[in-house]
């Protein structure tokens, strides 16, 4: 059995095409059924996000499997095959496994290290499990992918720092204030960026939100959204001392907060720290404010610099993550190749044969007065028993042949008789830690 990946992503296709190929999560049952009813596809699942549409499938015939899934993707969305095909990639074997591990670990994402993709792949797997389009191999495969993603998340710093301006501001606030739950955010102006940043602060759990906007009504509406209060813009300085975090994004053409005023506010606050975030262009806050005691001022460029730094750090951590992925591929390939009929039959036979020989040798050793003739008969008798015992299972395995259930049988056999999971000929990457490979459920 082989794992294949067919699909497109932000690397290979423009948004116009990606949105045409996207699958609706609410109507995912039908495409999943169609997918596994393709002649060469035994198991399948569909990952569909705004950045990628991918099919992970199990097939006996790699070339046919990939071709069928490609046609399915175009046909299901009634798109001409020639338009879609150039953007589709198809991986198999080691490359397919690497690809899925990288996707789940967010190494293939537009923003490396973002946390959403793992949840999306988990959801896609959930649908496949619900509608029974995934089987033994995809189950084990996806669980392995999740554990690789978890390992990467805990062992590398790939997702440890903010990569958006708004998130960077929230992280800085946490470094200044520790907990945000008893802190107040004041939003000055109701520009789009300010609103977005305020939203991030609200979901980070700030205690209170104040909105000061030139049009009071708009301020009130916005405050309502955040569960906060609007204050009249002209009374700004009567309320400034209540704010720990000030988000400023007005359209003013001059500084609205100058050091002298802010110094007064800080004194009124008994020197409790204030964090000013100036996301307006042109700037709202005089940069000199930053030199006041216990005042921290970040403008758009500063935050952008933080984000750039974090991205750079993520890229370095991603290299460590790639090494982890490479190490894990070998293990999974070893397990996959153990699900082949012939090597399993050979392993099963040698397991039984080993028991027969050992028991026979014990008997012969304690039973000294046997003639060679009698020894031969014992030999023949035990051989016959083993052969008869194994006859039916061997035939069933050979006959079930190409179907999905073979893998179940093979896996069960290997577990029941503790047959070795050593990779068969052609695999040069032995499993480093068998346990890990076997117990991912």
């Amino acid at each position, binding site marked *: 059995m082989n794992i294949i990946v067919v699909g497109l992503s932000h690397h290979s296709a423009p948004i116009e095409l990606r949105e045409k190929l996207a699958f609706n999560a609410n109507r995912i049952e039908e495409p999943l059924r169609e997918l596994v009813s393709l002649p060469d596809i035994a198991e399948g699942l569909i990952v569909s996000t705004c950045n990628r549409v991918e099919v992970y499938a199990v097939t006996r015939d790699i070339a046919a499997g990939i071709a069928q899934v490609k046609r399915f993707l175009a046909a299901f969305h009634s798109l001409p095959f020639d338009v879609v095909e150039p953007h589709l990639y198809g991986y198999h074997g080691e490359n397919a496994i690497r690809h899925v591990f990288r996707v789940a670990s967010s190494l293939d994402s537009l923003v490396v290290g973002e946390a959403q993709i793992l949840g999306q792949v988990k959801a896609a797997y959930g649908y496949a499990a619900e509608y029974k389009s995934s089987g033994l191999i995809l189950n084990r495969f996806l669980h392995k992918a999740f554990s690789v993603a978890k390992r990467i998340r805990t062992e590398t710093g790939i997702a*440890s*720092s903010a990569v958006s301006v708004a998130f960077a501001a929230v992280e*800085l606030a*946490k*470094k*200044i*204030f*520790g*907990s945000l739950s008893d802190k107040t955010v004041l939003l000055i102006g109701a520009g789009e960026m300010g609103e977005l940043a305020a939203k991030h602060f609200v979901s980070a759990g700030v205690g209170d939100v104040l909105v000061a906007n030139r049009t009071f009504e708009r301020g009130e509406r916005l405050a309502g959204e955040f569960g906060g209060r609007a204050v009249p813009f002209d009374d700004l300085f009567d309320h400034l001392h209540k704010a720990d975090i000030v988000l400023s994004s007005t359209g003013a053409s001059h500084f609205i907060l100058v050091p002298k005023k802010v110094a007064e506010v800080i004194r009124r*606050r*008994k*020197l*409790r*720290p204030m964090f000013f975030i100036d996301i307006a262009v042109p700037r709202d806050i005089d940069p000199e404010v*930053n*030199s006041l*005691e*216990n005042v*921290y001022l*970040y403008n758009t460029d*500063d935050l952008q*610099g*933080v984000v750039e*730094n974090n991205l750079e750090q993520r890229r370095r951590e991603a290299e460590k993550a790639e090494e982890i992925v490479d190490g894990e591929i070998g293990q999974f390939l070893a397990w996959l190749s153990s699900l082949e009929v012939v090597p399993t039959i050979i392993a099963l036979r040698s397991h039984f044969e080993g028991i027969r020989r050992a028991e026979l040798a014990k008997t012969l050793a304690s039973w000294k007065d046997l003639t060679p003739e009698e020894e031969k008969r014992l030999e023949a008798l035990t051989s016959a028993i083993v052969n008869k015992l194994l006859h039916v299972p061997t035939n069933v395995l050979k006959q079930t042949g190409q179907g999905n259930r073979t893998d179940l049988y093979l896996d069960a056999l290997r577990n029941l008789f503790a047959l070795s999971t050593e990779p068969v000929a052609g695999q040069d990457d032995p499993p480093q830690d068998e346990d890990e490979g076997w117990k991912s459920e």
Partner: protein
Amino acid sequence: MSVYFYITVLVLYGAATLLYLLYIVLPHDTVGRISRWVLATGFVCHCTFTFFRYLEAGHTPITNLHESLSFFSLTIVAVFLGFQHRYRAVILGSFVTPLALLVMLVSAIFPSVIVPLNPALKSGWLGFHTITAFAGYAAFAIAFCAGIMYLLQEHFLKNKKLGALYHRLPSLEVLDDINYRCLTIGFPLLTLAIISGAIWAESAWGAYWSWDPKETWSLITWFVYAALLHGRLTTGWRGSRAAILAIVGFCVLLFTFLGVNLLLPGLHSYR
């Protein structure tokens, strides 16, 4: 016997210091856990060492510089272990353990022989006076470390230099809170040490207060911390001001402790 414990303590504190410093570059939970255990083991050995000294000497083993520096180090570690538990700030150890180790190493310079206690000092006040003094010193030592950490973190935030150390250090609020907590622990202890010292002085030397250099400098130290506490409670001296004062206070305190003993002749010059 006690000398073996002393060496074990030195080795374990050395190892804990290296581990806590390693934590700065390798911030793994495992590293943090191992560091804590190594330090806690060192602490237990240190307590045992002090207890043996007590048995050998027959009085509280804080009568010369060797003993008092060792005891100072012990109290620093004790207060730190308590703080680490409460604030879960492993990184505090990267600043405190080097200090505890340094104090321990300095104590090794001074002769460790047990000298018979000066008859004037034979009193139940010896234990109370020295233990409260050093417990207070230890709290101020932690405040000193938190102050340095605060100034570093503030520097990173103000100048937008957000490197690895910035990510490891706790938030300004937590550091300021540690500073304040240390002050509220250290100040009453220092006050008790000064009062008990005065009472003891009356019975040993016949006067409550004789403006001996140690007494003068203790009073100066007390005023520095009193000013900090007052500023904090009334006008909100917090953040960098509190951090700087905690650092200044600790320098004055070190002079009171070491400078007076080594440089200024007086009743308290025990070596």
